[in-house]
């Protein structure tokens, strides 16, 4: 079971955390892995805290529970740090990726004694620069791929291009911006 990579996403309804987890499942699938991508469902509303999960493995995945001891945590909205214990159960040798303009050192004191690895990325800045709008999930997807190393960056970029061409077949004008956001994010994650 140690060869399963488990990822937990924290976001707010409408920010695309669920979509990002499904995209990650998609792209990992295309590299030949066994995957799970699933949100925790409830009466979600825009802005309410939501959780989504990924399991990525070389072997068939049978377990159907939520993830309590993830290898990685992604925080799509930094305001969640106040209300949610985002590092709960996070493995000591794992890492957390947070969308914030702060540096890892600055954000550490908001993580209530967490001593593991911290990565930060200013997804707002990247998204607004590349897309002209605030969609934090695309840069966060890049960030977790880089931090977790679940696949090579070149393969990720290639597969995402493919995936966006399919997903945005009806509005190809947004593909370029999204690809740009992915590429910048790979560079900017700290």
């Amino acid at each position: 079971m140690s060869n399963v990579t488990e990822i937990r996403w924290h976001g707010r309804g409408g920010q695309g955390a669920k979509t990002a987890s499904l995209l990650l499942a998609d792209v990992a699938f295309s590299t030949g892995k066994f995957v799970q991508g699933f949100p925790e469902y409830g009466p979600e509303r825009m802005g309410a805290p939501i959780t989504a999960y990924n399991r990525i493995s070389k072997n068939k995945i049978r377990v159907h529970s939520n993830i309590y001891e993830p290898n990685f945590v992604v925080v799509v909205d930094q305001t969640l740090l106040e209300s949610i214990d985002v590092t709960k159960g996070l493995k000591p040798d794992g890492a957390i990726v947070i969308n914030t303009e702060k540096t890892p050192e600055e954000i550490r004191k908001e993580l209530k004694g967490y001593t593991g690895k911290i990565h930060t990325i200013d997804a707002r800045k990247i998204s607004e620069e590349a897309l002209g709008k605030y969609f934090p999930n695309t840069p966060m997807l890049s960030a977790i791929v880089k931090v977790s190393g679940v696949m090579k960056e070149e393969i990720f970029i290639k597969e995402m291009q493919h995936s966006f061409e399919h997903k945005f077949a009806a509005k190809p004008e947004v593909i370029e911006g999204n690809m740009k956001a992915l590429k910048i994010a790979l560079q900017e994650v700290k």
Partner: protein
Amino acid sequence: MAIRERLSGNEAVATAMRQINPDVVAAFPITPSTEVPQYFSTYVANGLVDTEFVPVESEHSAMSACVGSEAAGARTMTATSSCGLALMWEELFIAASCRLPITLALVNRALSGPININADHSDSMGARDTGWIQIYSENNQEAYDNFIQAVRIGEHKDVRLPVMVCQDGFITSHAVENIELIEDDKVKEFVGEYYPQNFLLNSKQPMSVGPYDTPTYYMEHKRLQAEGMIKAKKVILEISEQFEKLTGRKYGLFETYKLDDADSALVIINSTAGTAKDAVDRLRAEGKKVGLLKIRVFRPFPAEEIAEALENTKSIAVMDKAEGFNSQGGPLCSEIKSALYNIENAPKIINYIYGLGGRDVKVDNIIEVYNELEKINKTGDIGNKYRYLSVRD
């Protein structure tokens, strides 16, 4: 060659429906099964199927439309969950007693109240005695495979009963996982064309369906209906065998996992069976003799076969994802106890109510259950026979 894909459980069932290309689908949306008719209606709109899609105003109407269309001679399907199935209640009996092989994708969800949209089995367990065949699925793959087989099972001349194919709401219906799909033409060939013996739209042989029945005849009709359910067991196994030839995936009436030499066994249904298999592996690595039996076919209930599979265990925990409110435990436990009643030195049986309304079940929770069984094996003291798993107390 199988097609490697990744789909949610709902997409998987909708894909099976597309490949089967039924004559009629009549459905009303309800969480978490909504996506099934939603995906399917796009297949209709895009011309991928030539199905008549009937959007109705309630589940009562959905099943009524299914009864009418199946009686007319059309291969008919629907999907629902929870309160939707409850609203179909009356028609479920009619579909079964009129011997109409409708296929229903049931995405298991708790029944109110308090209102809850997450998974448990109170909906399908409530409908267990309506005369429908019930087949359960651990994951998206099984939901897909079972749905394709269900068509053949229900329509078989010895059976002629409606079939519901169940999977856990959200846990598998909304989780994207790997799946192996069968090619469209092979599915089409496997299910074949539907040729009912008698049907309303046969102008050469007019008929009446659903007449008033007097006490003089009603019992004979019910006895004949029961025969369909009795014969279904053999038919299910025959079709599973053909399915295995097509796909290499083997299905029985139930699945056993490391049960042959097990002292402690779980009996479980749907998605938590996968979680429990991980628990079994973990405990086996510690040298513990544990195993499980996963129910696939709950109606007809394969009592003799289950008794044979479990008779050499010392203790069993029957896992019910539905309350029975009989003050004794859940419906699955009652059935398992009956199945084992005539076994000499029958294993000790405890019942756990678990996972109600989407309460998450971890590998550790299942290990806790096996630990309790180990205690019973050691002390011989069964203790409380009716327990709740992961309830705050």
